[in-house]
């Protein structure tokens, strides 16, 4: 994913392979309004893959947090920096990768928002949301020093799934 779009949004690819894997990649400018675009693209892919719509809520909730973090904390709302997304739906698993062009961060340094001393903090719940609503969440550094968040949700396998 190296091409830069001329417009705000570029759908870089959108394809179905013969093993019924659906995949889409997008590049978005760092604007909160584009979270809606990311959401619609994911839901469209899920519908085409036959994912049940009652799974949407928590999947979308986690996606929105990841993109919001990339826009706000990673790219610092710099319109010259892109947020790159890759969605894959295969059998009962949805995988989402969100990459920013920031300078990286330590996810372990984010305090637990459910600790009593943190309950009234107005921020710091985004990563908690992601970990709560997805089966797997990993943070990696990109070659350019940014952050890639890799999230996976499998049907009916999430412990304590509130959905």
């Amino acid at each position: 994913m190296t091409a830069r779009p001329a417009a705000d949004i570029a759908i870089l690819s959108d394809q179905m392979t013969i093993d019924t894997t659906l995949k889409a990649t997008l590049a978005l400018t760092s604007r909160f309004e584009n979270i809606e675009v990311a959401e619609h693209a994911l839901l469209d892919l899920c519908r085409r893959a036959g994912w049940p719509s009652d799974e949407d809520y928590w999947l979308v909730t986690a996606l929105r947090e990841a993109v919001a973090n990339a826009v706000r904390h990673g790219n610092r709302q710099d319109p010259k920096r892109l947020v790159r997304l890759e969605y894959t739906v295969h059998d009962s698993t949805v995988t989402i990768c969100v990459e920013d062009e920031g300078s990286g961060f330590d996810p372990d340094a984010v305090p637990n928002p459910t600790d009593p001393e943190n309950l009234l903090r107005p921020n710091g719940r985004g990563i908690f949301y992601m970990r709560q609503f997805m089966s797997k969440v990993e943070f990696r550094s990109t070659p350019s020093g940014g952050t890639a968040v890799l999230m996976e949700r499998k049907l009916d396998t999430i412990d304590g799934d509130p959905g």
Partner: protein
Amino acid sequence: MKCNIRDLGDVRIIELGGKITIGSGDVKIRELVNQALEDGKKEILFDLGDVKAIDSSGIGEMVACYTTVTKRGGHLKLMHLSPKINDILQVTQLITVFDVFDDEREALGSF
């Protein structure tokens, strides 16, 4: 995000709808609470019955509003939580912070 304001006695009821999310609804609820305080209304009831989604920024702003109102000697309470909003308050443990009601009359009587 949609909103409607009703005053019943000392209580300002702020009915919210749609999405309370980053960059839009989160800022709006801050403005609504600041307006209530400017109007001398320190007893505030959020009606979340029509809220479809709330992200961590929206939750964070609700917490900030709670702190602001409490520091001014008032109360911020919640009413008509959907099952999913209730789930979010449960997992974030904010259900232990906010007073939550299903019935408006009961909520009004609690202030």
